[in-house]
């Protein structure tokens, strides 16, 4: 039983990590109907830019390496880089492609993936880097000693970050002018346009926010596994979360992440050994697929009724 709980808790916490990446997809899909495959590449780009600035800033400005100033300055610069990337994407890629079928936009974002990946490695080199956020990835001693359940401090920290991020996004959506405009756009492009909401500005804001989410996700994942190309693969972990939770729902991303994380770990531990293991690659997709058969628009997705 204690082992079961450990697997379950570990899975839920992993699910939070997936949800972090999935959030970026949801934001962009909601506002502009673009299934942005480049989100994984953006996570990589953001984290690499952050670490890159962390490396070069002390030399440029004569600051002490690893100090708090460097950290926040690098964070700020990386965020600015993401804003620039988002703006450039909106101008160069999305604006000319407006009104094209979804699949064309989707393919464009795959093209964008190559550009972003190449740009990241061209600017900062191919080296693998470590990233230390100052939180040790170790089990909490108290839980370990008393109940023999290993829960990592770092994973809890990541969950905390995800929770604050969602709270922040909720505040942004609910209480700011931009947020209201965002929701209006998400509801109906045409109607939003007709009452004078500047669609393109909104899109730029959304890409910037998605860039911010990518930066946070990249830092958390980067601290865990190193800042390297493989960060782009986090997108593959986020996709089943998306279809389970629904492309358009922020709470869906979180709940979907938790369900996927927990069930994939439980399956790997309890079912995996009977089929030779390594089922985590496809199990979440199968699970999401099975789930979709009952609810084709995902857990919290908008129900779509086709009319002739």
């Amino acid at each position, binding site marked *: 039983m204690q082992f079961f709980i450990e697997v379950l808790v570990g899975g839920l916490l992993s699910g939070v990590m997936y949800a972090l990446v999935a959030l970026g997809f949801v934001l962009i899909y909601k506002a502009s109907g673009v299934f942005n495959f480049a989100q994984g590449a953006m996570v990589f780009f953001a984290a690499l830019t952050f670490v890159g600035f962390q490396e070069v800033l002390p030399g440029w400005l004569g600051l002490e390496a690893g100090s708090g100033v460097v950290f926040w300055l690098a964070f700020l610069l990386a965020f600015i880089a993401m804003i620039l990337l988002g703006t450039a994407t909106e101008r160069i*890629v999305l604006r000319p492609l407006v009104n094209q079928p979804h699949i064309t936009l989707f393919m464009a974002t795959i*093209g964008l993936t*190559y550009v972003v990946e190449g740009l990241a*490695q061209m600017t900062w080199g191919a080296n693998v880097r470590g990233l230390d956020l100052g939180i040790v990835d170790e089990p909490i001693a108290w839980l370990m000693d008393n109940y023999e359940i290993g829960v990592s401090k770092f994973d809890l920290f990541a969950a905390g970050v995800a929770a604050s991020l969602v709270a922040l996004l909720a505040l942004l959506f609910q209480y700011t002018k931009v947020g209201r405009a965002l929701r209006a756009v998400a509801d109906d492009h045409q109607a939003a346009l007709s009452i004078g909401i500047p669609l393109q500005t909104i899109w730029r804001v959304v890409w910037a926010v998605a860039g911010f989410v990518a930066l946070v996700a990249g830092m958390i994942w980067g601290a865990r596994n190193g800042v390297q190309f493989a960060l782009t693969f986090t997108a593959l972990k986020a996709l089943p979360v*998306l279809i389970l939770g629904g492309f358009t729902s922020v709470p869906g991303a979180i709940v979907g992440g938790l369900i996927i994380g927990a069930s994939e770990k439980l399956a790997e531990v309890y079912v995996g050994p009977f089929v*030779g293991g390594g089922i985590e690659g496809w199990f979440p997709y199968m699970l*999401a697929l099975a789930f*979709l058969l009952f609810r084709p628009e995902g857990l919290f997705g908008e129900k779509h009724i086709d009319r002739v």
Partner: protein
Amino acid sequence: MLYREAGQFKASYAEDSQIFPIRQDKIGFWVLMLVFGLAVPLLANQYWLKAILIPVLIFSLAAIGLNILTGYAGQLSLGSAAFMAVGAFAAYNFILRIEGMPFLVALVLAGVTAALVGILFGLPSLRIKGFYLAVATLAAQFFIVWALVKFPWFSNNSSSGVVTAQDVTILGYTFATPEAKYILTFLIVAFMALLAKNMVRSSTGRAWMAVRDMDVAAQVIGFRLMRTKLLAFAVSSFYCGVAGALYAYTYIGTVEPEGFNLDLSFKILFMIIIGGVGSIMGSFLGAAFIVLLPIFLDNFIPMIFGDALGAGFVSNFQLIVFGGLIIFFLIVEPHGLARLWQIAKEKLRLWPFPH
């Protein structure tokens, strides 16, 4: 001037519904067949045959397969490479385990196996649509590759899960040289492409397009959705399966399941988007473009920059240009190269007197 249809009258329905209603097109088609079927294998060197022409043909076939599913029937799929893997491993096992199995029969059986697997993974399409379906097809992509690695039976208990294709022998003749392999591939691909062209012009194809354009409406006017969609999955997977088998037998020779990864699926999707969604011709153009572009960049970019910038820079720059060109093409001509081809033909029809 030469490309004129004036004076060519259609006197019967059969004449009106042929593949190439214009005489010049028909001639053009046969010239093309002769050039690629006879002249190319005689003239091209080994590099072009082995490294470019054969893969372009094979990927064209896979692209036709995906185009049937995505372009004609409107079901977006990200799992084409997995169905190629099914075809490759099925062909290997049929030839290995059944004594005296003729190659062409094995090829058809490989396609049929892929089609059956395709139907299985196509079932969700009855409920799920759009990107939800696309992501769901990733389940096929990951599951199939996993299964091929995991169960040693598929690779005849090879220690590494890798299989080596047997010799290709038809009626006692072994296709060993690149020229022979090219001609074999060419004939199979040309035959299947014509078949596909006919299929999409028939009632089957029209049913697919009706479902693509609006499945509810199609259902209302009497198309059976389940049959139509699953048929699209089956035919598409059949094409991909045969392409996969050819990939193993006439191109790479030794294949591992991981070779059929998500990247390859994306590449095939690119081929149909760049080439033209819903166009058989476009599948060929797209495949040629996607195969040739990185090779061209690999030769061309170092030529401009020389060694001055470091190898890492050049490789990354190529990637950026590749991605950039894809975006560029999508913006300039969202309907793909096939559309450009069509426009060129329209222009040619009026040339030199456009008014």
